[in-house]
């Protein structure tokens, strides 16, 4: 009941004209960015980080959340009409959605996806309303050792669960941690990796790292391998669903969140795994199994619903524990840091207006997105025709503004380019970008918590594992680390048995 009344207060915040305006800006930008090839929601939020210098936090996060959810809606439009998904969350949408579009049922595919996102987002956000305060209550008296354990979990999960190669994930994480070390040590003022430079003594701003890796790195990487003739999107009419299709889609819409939400909340790579799981589930449960691969509408409805629900799950762990499980959440965490707000269990006590305003605005954003995407999908699809030179020149242009806005230093632009070239190199050699960003954002905080915990325990390492919470987290970390070993051992054991 308590969370319901808080939510009502939140609606009071979110329904103020200014915040409604920012929600609208967020969902418009988010949909456009989701549709546009080459820009993902993480890059978009990174490019918009400079607004945190001028905007109040509630408005900024309402806008960022709109971009996150809008990116999901728009991303499925691209993958259905173009078959080359940019966001990992939309890969599955292309598997059934694109064949549907090719056989003239694009309108139904778009509708199944949009309503799926709406259903998944709504159910996921309801779960967020009821679960987040409970998690926050459970975690409310966690201390330095627990925070450190959570951050180690984030590091391990993001390198081990994501991507195909662990060693490359760790390489990326270590690059991020190194960038995070540059500057004055927070506890003692000792200069680290500054080489006597005054500019570097302040450290490399997270905004510059995020924009460099996500925006410049991506733009340069695309420039290196730019497709000279972009694929032509399939023309499509206004999305709609007939009765027969509704009968086939309502169950997948409702099943999606059951898979998406929990996977979003744990650090397992965001929407990628749950959308695939949902796809497999729908395929197994469908009466039209033979249609899968040729355009089965269940294969669009379920995974898209799971994708949006996973975004809500991501917000649970981000808001209650300060644990980012996706790239967007990581960049949003950087925005929290810009405001000097520490997401975590105390956030619900200290910043109730911000948190509940943000959560309430999610419901509003979802309604806006449904209205924007159902009737207007053909208009959004026109964005796919944007000349690529303008698109990527625009990304470089706005990245330059963002980096310059950090401190008004031309040197920051040079650092930005260097980090961008690093991002290009990482994409070329299959080093995932997300671990590096998480390393930069959480590295300094993790070090501080570690040293604080050891200070309390007077240097004894047992001070890191003296709470049940921390022990639980380390057990989870051990499980994640041992998982591939177990996978390798199990089939061998079976083979021996047979």
């Amino acid at each position: 009941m308590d969370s319901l009344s808080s939510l009502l207060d939140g609606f009071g915040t979110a329904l103020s004209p200014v915040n409604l305006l920012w929600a609208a800006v967020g969902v418009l930008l988010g949909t456009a960015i989701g549709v546009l090839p080459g820009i993902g929601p993480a890059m978009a939020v990174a490019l918009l980080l400079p607004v945190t210098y001028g905007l109040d936090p509630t408005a900024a996060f309402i806008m960022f959340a709109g971009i996150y959810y809008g990116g999901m809606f728009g991303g499925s439009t691209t993958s259905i009409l173009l078959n080359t998904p940019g966001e990992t969350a939309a890969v599955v949408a292309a598997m059934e959605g694109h064949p549907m579009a090719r056989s003239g049922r694009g309108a139904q595919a778009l509708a199944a996806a949009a309503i799926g996102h709406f259903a998944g987002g709504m159910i996921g956000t309801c779960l967020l309303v009821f679960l987040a305060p409970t998690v926050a209550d459970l975690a409310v008296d966690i201390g330095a050792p627990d925070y450190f354990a959570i951050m180690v979990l984030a590091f391990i999960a993001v390198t081990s669960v994501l991507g195909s190669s662990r060693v490359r994930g760790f390489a990326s994480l270590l690059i991020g941690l190194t960038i995070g070390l540059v500057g004055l040590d927070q506890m003692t003022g000792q200069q680290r990796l500054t080489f006597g430079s005054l500019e570097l003594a302040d450290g490399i701003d997270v905004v510059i790292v995020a924009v460099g890796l996500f925006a410049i790195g991506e733009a340069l990487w695309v420039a290196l391998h730019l497709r000279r003739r972009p694929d032509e999107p399939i023309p499509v009419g206004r999305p709609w669903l007939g009765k027969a299709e509704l009968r086939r889609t309502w169950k997948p819409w409702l099943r999606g969140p059951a898979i998406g939400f929990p996977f979003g909340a744990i650090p397992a790579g965001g929407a990628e795994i749950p959308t695939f799981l949902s796809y497999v589930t729908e395929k197994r449960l469908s009466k039209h199994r033979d249609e899968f691969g040729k355009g089965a509408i269940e294969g669009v409805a379920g995974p898209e619903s799971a994708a949006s629900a996973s975004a809500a799950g991501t917000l649970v762990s981000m808001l209650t524990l300060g644990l980012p499980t996706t790239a967007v959440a990581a960049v949003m965490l950087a925005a929290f840091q810009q405001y000097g707000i520490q997401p975590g269990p105390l956030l619900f006590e200290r910043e109730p207006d911000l948190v509940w305003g943000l959560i309430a605005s999610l419901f509003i954003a979802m309604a806006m997105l449904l209205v924007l995407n159902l009737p207007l999908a053909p208009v959004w699809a026109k964005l796919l025709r944007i000349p690529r030179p303008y698109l990527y020149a625009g990304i470089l242009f706005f990245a330059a503004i963002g980096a310059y806005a950090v401190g008004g230093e031309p040197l920051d632009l040079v650092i930005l380019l260097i980090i961008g070239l690093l991002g290009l190199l990482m994409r070329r050699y299959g080093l995932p970008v997300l671990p590096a960003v998480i390393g930069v954002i959480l590295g300094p905080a993790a070090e501080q918590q570690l040293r604080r915990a050891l200070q309390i325990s007077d240097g004894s390492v047992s001070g890191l594992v003296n709470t049940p919470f921390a022990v639980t987290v380390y057990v989870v970390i051990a499980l994640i680390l041992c998982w591939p070993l177990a996978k390798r051992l199990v089939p061998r054991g079976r083979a021996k048995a047979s």
Partner: protein
Amino acid sequence: MTDHHTDATAGTTEATRGGIRAFLRGRSELGVCALLLAIGVLVLTDALTMDTDFAQRGPVGPRTVPIVVGVALLVVAVLLAVDVLRGGKGEAEGGEDIDLSAPGDWRTVLLLSGVFLANAILIEPLGFPISGALLFWGSAYALGSRAFHRDPLIAAVLSTLTFFVFDRLLAVPLPGGPLMEVL
């Protein structure tokens, strides 16, 4: 006899040199290992030369974490090298506008980097409206756009408009340069 011997060695070194080149081809990822190794050495050197006596507070000083990170970088560099030598390969990232079958177009990347650096140099003397327009036009040109009457126009409008939105509406100060002083 000795002459013969040196000849033979020269022959083999040449052969191995050719062999090394052939060996390195397709294994450019070893460059990443070298980079990680270099960063690791850098971090460790910085940490070990740190003068921490005056600043130590608590049992863990400012050196501990850099030392851990530096050692881990060295370990990962070696592990990655082993993986590459065993035939492991980092999977290049795909995307909507990315055609991985085409060879890398490094000229475009160089041009873009140059244009971007030019903006960093020009932003203060010329002001953002001009340097930003040059950045957009130059980038579009580098990426293959050749509409010589449309591109500069779009660049100028975009740059001026953004300048006013950021500088005046969002209160993010950008240098106006001589152009804005005239206006």
